[in-house]
């Protein structure tokens, strides 16, 4: 990697927010680096400053409480999620999506927040977060705002994050804890690959929600379904929201077909 940039690693929140405010569009937030540094190397990102969030107090916290649900800080890695007994018990869907994300080395660095911020249509964590009714907390010097994940993505790799803002937390409410969850990811090989199609299914208290990735510019949520609904109906509901494309990885016909297949398989697990 030869493109130059300067690096800052604030240890306090106010320091971080000031830096972001001052640098504006020239700054990129560095968490795990597994998306950002790849983009810098390939020339897709050319930040003047890279601001490391990992040393800010409290940013590595992964906290669960019955009242507040799960709070995921920006430095919480995918492997932190996978190795947390609390998360494994309370949010099996989150774990299901996390465990097939890239490779072990990547999971040691990649963060949940980073996966969401990168906003790839193929992202592994987004389908789960959509199902789990997660909220994204955006903060800047001007204050904080909470955006439901359903309103966070505006297009492929595009979000509502404004200049000077960063994702400070992801909140998963206690209502979706202990839901049944399943995730199916279509890959080209059994080894690590990004998702060609991803289907997350969650059922709780008779309600069924689906999160689907790689079938539109943003991850998709299908809600308002009954966990008792016949599989055909659920598949039809899923198909109704898709707008897949054909690309070098897959054709839209197969994507559509496999969404149906994965919905049925996931249903068998969660219904």
């Amino acid at each position, binding site marked *: 990697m030869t493109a*130059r*940039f300067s690096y800052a690693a604030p240890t306090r929140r106010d320091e971080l927010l000031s830096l972001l405010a001052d640098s504006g569009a020239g700054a990129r937030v560095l968490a795990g680096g*597994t998306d950002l540094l*790849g983009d810098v*190397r390939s020339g897709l990102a050319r930040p003047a400053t890279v601001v490391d969030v990992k040393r800010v107090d409290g940013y590595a916290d992964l906290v669960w409480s019955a009242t507040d649900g799960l709070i995921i800080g920006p430095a919480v890695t995918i492997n932190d999620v996978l190795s947390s007994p609390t998360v494994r018990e309370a949010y099996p869907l989150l774990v299901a999506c996390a465990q097939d994300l890239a490779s072990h*080395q*990547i999971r*040691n660095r990649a963060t949940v927040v980073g996966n969401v911020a990168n906003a790839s249509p193929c992202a592994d964590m987004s389908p789960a977060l959509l199902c789990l009714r997660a909220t994204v907390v955006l903060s800047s010097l001007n204050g904080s705002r909470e955006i439901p994940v359903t309103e966070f993505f505006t297009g492929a790799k595009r979000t509502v994050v404004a200049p000077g803002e960063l994702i400070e937390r992801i909140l998963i409410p206690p209502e979706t804890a202990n839901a049944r969850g399943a995730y199916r990811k279509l890959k080209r090989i059994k080894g690590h690959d990004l998702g060609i199609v991803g289907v997350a299914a969650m059922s709780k208290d008779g309600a069924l929600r689906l999160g689907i990735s790689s079938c539109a510019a943003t991850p998709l949520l299908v809600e308002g379904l009954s966990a008792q609904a016949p599989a055909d109906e659920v598949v039809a509901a899923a198909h109704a929201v898709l707008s897949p494309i054909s690309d070098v990885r897959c054709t839209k016909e197969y994507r559509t077909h496999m969404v149906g297949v994965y919905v049925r398989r996931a249903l068998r697990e969660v219904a």
Partner: protein
Amino acid sequence: MRVSVTVNGHAFERDVEEHWTLLRFLRDGLGMTGSKEGCGAGECGACTVELNGKTVNSCLALAVEVDGGTIATVEGEADHGRLSEIQAAFARNHAVQCGFCTAGMVMSVRDLLRRNPKPTVEEIKDGIEGNFCRCTGYEQIVEAVLDASGQLDASSKGALKYV
């Protein structure tokens, strides 16, 4: 920027450019050329090192990020010329062909066995998923890991058959 790190038990303090990856710092800054660049993009694992107790692709970490950190690389695996159990098992089981993936592979195996001292074949394959090998086809590497973890026996040791 000044960076202080401990690598394989030795303390180093160096000035480094902010955009340098950890891999570049190890190779060009500290002369430890064991870790290799196979892709520079976090896919192949040839650059795998242990950072603060966890294996990472050093091509996707910055040197400046690891200030104050503890790093282990393949150069620290042997003890003054004495091969570790993992290295000896690799040698016995033909787990090394061209050798370019070997440094990263050894680091991943080391980490795997620390987390899971008696992994199954499936767990071994999952554990080294992030380390490409184009030469061996992985089977003899899996056998080396079984050997290093005291699990290689007649049923798990593959052998060339004679018709």
